[in-house]
């Protein structure tokens, strides 16, 4: 029964989202123009297909994101048991974050975070 709140919340969220979506059908404006049928329809004609090449800058960001994001996984078990583990685990996690910080500082200094 302790999860019933979650169920009610999920039902409410789904119902509300559905309602908004349905309201758009009678009330929303409707324009049928050539460029709206295209894959990218934000008013600009696409100059390249999405299967083309991406700038290498995106890869740099992706690489950094993957590394730092996944390392954060170790924070979850630590955070759930934080009270039980106490001060030593806190210090240890700070050391872990400091090591990650050195990595970030390195990436920064080498200019991996510069967009241009």
């Amino acid at each position: 029964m302790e999860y019933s709140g979650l169920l009610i919340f999920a039902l409410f969220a789904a119902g509300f989202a559905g309602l908004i979506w349905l309201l758009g059908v009678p009330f929303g404006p409707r324009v049928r123009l050539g460029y709206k049928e295209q894959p990218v329809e934000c008013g600009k004609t696409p100059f390249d297909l999405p299967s083309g090449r991406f700038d290498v800058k995106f890869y740099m960001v992706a690489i950094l994101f993957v590394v730092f994001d996944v390392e954060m996984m170790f924070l979850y078990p630590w955070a759930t048991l934080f009270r039980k583990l106490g001060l030593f685990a806190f210090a240890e996690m700070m050391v872990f974050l400091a090591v990650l910080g050195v990595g970030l500082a390195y990436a920064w200094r080498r200019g991996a975070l510069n967009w241009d």
Partner: protein
Amino acid sequence: MSGPIPLQWPLALSALLFTLGVVGVLTRRNMIQVFMSLELMLNAVNLNLVAFARHSESITGQVFVLFVFTVAAAEAAVGLAIIIAFYRNKQTLNVDEFNLLKW
């Protein structure tokens, strides 16, 4: 249908995924596809570990999965960087183009 899922099911799925990964690595010609097959193999291992951890009610397997995930992320980052360096010099990601050193 009730009760816990028998251990054989996740193990069979994991074996299947692992085999798919192996086949993918060996037959795909594009670097990125090879790379994705490698990740598939690692995730098959993770599934195995979680299933065993659940079955034997020991936490070790789940902890192992955390390590596999993070190491795989680091590996993926380095792998992507190597692929980019290769691409910059060669302008292709096709395995067949590896001809400087014999495969």
